[in-house]
């Protein structure tokens, strides 16, 4: 691809170069218009983007350098500057605030790895199994997409009901019907809350993986499989040698998006556990929320958000660098 465009451009350049002077004068405004128009049309979107995303972000960064508490929220621009104090509090892992943030960070990392891994695995497996045509395939595909189509709050509230200790469906099945546990378990408090959170997160996230991979699969030419089958490749080999490599560009984006969504997920733990999440399921977004709103310490909350943003930027940057480099080497 790259070689063809460069040669075409070179040709164009030589063409315009061969007729110097003649058309240059009158053409310039036309070219400016041609070049400028797309930017002009992009302007509203750009301004909105600045307003909706960048301005709050910059404000958040500003706030993180201020001692912004209940005494100053009414006119936060008048809050005293505090330099890096908020950051010091956030990263001082020997003090309670930093220690709690670090704990929350590790919980979030573990949760994200497990959730993204499971979402991807389930999504890929299901998409591959649903590749062959059979009766009821359309129904199944639709059914699997339901969790993705449901409003998050409704879905998670339903899960919260199902996870209840006394009347929940989960305990009813696990304990009353199957007898797998000695006594009904607590899912919304204590250590099990991590499992509850992971379950809901995977349930909610895997249909997206399924959808994206299903779309990706449509682009793999059937001939490849036919040729592979002729050469005696089994199903497992076909998946390993054809499907997965062909899906690599899709997976690159999918895993990144899932990672960002899961790492930042606020709705699921908030609806499931309320304002104070159990320690085992204290995701970082809830933690920052609690620092900010429940304790009215907006400066420290902002500093934690900025740290989170930096971390995600670094991870995303490294990820893109590594995966695209690998892709480039693979392409050559």
């Amino acid at each position, binding site marked *: 691809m790259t070689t063809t465009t460069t040669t075409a451009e070179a040709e164009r350049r030589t063409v315009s170069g061969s007729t110097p002077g003649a058309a240059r004068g009158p053409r310039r405004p036309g070219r400016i218009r041609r070049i400028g128009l797309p930017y002009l049309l992009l302007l*509203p979107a750009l301004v909105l983007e600045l307003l909706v995303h960048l*301005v709050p972000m910059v404000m958040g960064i500003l706030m993180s350098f201020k001692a912004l508490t*209940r005494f100053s*929220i009414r006119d936060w621009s008048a809050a005293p500057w505090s330099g890096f104090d908020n950051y010091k509090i956030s990263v001082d892992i020997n003090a309670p605030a930093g220690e709690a943030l670090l704990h929350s960070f590790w919980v979030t990392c573990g949760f994200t790895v497990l959730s993204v891994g499971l979402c991807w695995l389930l999504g890929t497996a299901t998409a591959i199994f649903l590749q062959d045509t059979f009766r009821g395939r359309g129904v199944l595909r639709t059914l699997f997409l339901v969790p993705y189509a449901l409003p998050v709050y409704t879905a998670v509230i339903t899960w919260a009901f199902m996870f209840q*200790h006394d009347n929940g469906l989960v305990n009813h099945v696990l304990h009353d019907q199957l007898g797998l546990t000695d006594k009904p378990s*607590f899912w919304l408090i*204590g250590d099990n809350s991590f499992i509850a959170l992971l379950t809901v997160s995977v349930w909610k996230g895997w249909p997206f993986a399924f959808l994206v991979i299903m779309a990706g699969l449509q682009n793999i030419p059937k001939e490849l499989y036919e040729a592979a089958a002729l050469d005696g490749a089994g199903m497992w080999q076909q998946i390993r040698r054809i499907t997965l490599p062909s899906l690599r560009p899709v997976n690159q984006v999918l895993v990144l998006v899932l990672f960002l969504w899961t790492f930042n997920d606020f709705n699921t733990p908030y609806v499931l556990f309320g304002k104070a999440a159990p320690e085992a399921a204290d995701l970082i977004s809830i933690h920052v929320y609690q620092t900010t709103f*429940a304790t009215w310490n907006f400066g420290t909350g902002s500093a934690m958000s900025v740290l989170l943003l930096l971390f995600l930027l670094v991870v995303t940057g490294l990820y893109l660098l590594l995966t695209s480099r690998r892709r480039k080497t693979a392409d050559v």
Partner: protein
Amino acid sequence: MRSIRVAAIGAVTLSLALAVSACGGGSSTAGGGGSNDSPKTLTYWASNQGASIAVDKKVLKPELDKFEKQTGIRVKLEVIPWSELLNRILTATTSGQGPDVLNIGNTWSASLQASGALLPWDDKNFGGIGGKDRFVDSALGSTGVKGEDPAAVPLYSMAYALYYNKKMFADAGISKPPATWDDVVADGKKLSKDGKWGLGAEGANLSENIHQVFVFAKQHGADFFTADGKPDFTSDGAVSAIKQYVDLMAKDKIIAPGNAEYAQNQSLSDFAKGKTAMVLWQTASATFASLGMKDDEWGVAPAPVRSGTPGTGTAVNSMVAGINLAVFKNTDNHDGALKFVKFMTSDAEQKILNKAYGSIPPVKSAQSDPAFNTQATAALRDTLAKSAEALPQVADESQFETSVGTAVKELFADAAGGRPVTTASVKAKLEKAQQQMPAK
């Protein structure tokens, strides 16, 4: 070509307009202070006092219409659920875009007072609504830091009482409601059998936890804040108070373990269904009725003390619960807002509203109405008058609710999960809670 130019001009105009309006948005309010720019309307944020938001609208709407008839001011009502109210107020404070008049939980008074978002009720403002003397002292004690102008005016007063299921008590052979905690435990043990339980609790509700342990701490002679407003969560009294509360589940086993995850008033529906025999609650009568429990099926008694009868000092048996009415400092209808507060705290409205919500009027002259002398309300009124104390009126109150409330929630989780709850484990949780408080 021409259409492109039109599109381009349109795009530029639109983006410029957006940019200008965005810059303009916040500036008008930056100066603060109230004005009378829109004298014909008021926005009122009401808290959720009835069984549902719809009930609140039904109760308040006719009264607001009355106000409009009297003054010509139209009141735009928004009823806000408790889970959101404080955040909404904080957002309004930050942006300066808020209601004109609003309800606040009276325990937030001092915290919100510190933010400077609410109009201070100095003598002049109080004079406009008939003077401070019209209000009950205990209710006034929960309107802000002592010695400063109150941040709000009492609207509804409530107190904790012990509600019990008459039939379950009779079946267990208990002739009168318990008066001390020892009685509660003894009776609770008789009642806790066959899947039924003695007492209900909302173990995962942070505010509810605070209300309970505040009273326990008082009864142990402890306070969560020192006289000069510093957090003091780990005193022996505070530790044994919280341990005593959690032990009702952990050691005495009269609270069902499942209550450890309750935060949405499930304990009230358990009570209405006859699954638990007792519950400590504030003004629960209206809720019981909405859950289908008849008035003669339950009884009400003063909340228990450690020994003797309820009174002051270590015989306190309730917090001063209630709702205050505040005026947002940035209001654009200052005079109208004060008129509205005067209307809502008038004798007539106090009687109507408090009757509808089952609460007690904080206005002395409205209390004489016979409606506040029934079995349900007499106990509450008595408690408020004799043995209720206000939660600490310090600026850090809301942080205290979060940190200590969470500690109690975690201790209940331990008790429910069968992990031991010891003096040491309680103290450790409280130490952690204290460390989370902002450094002075």
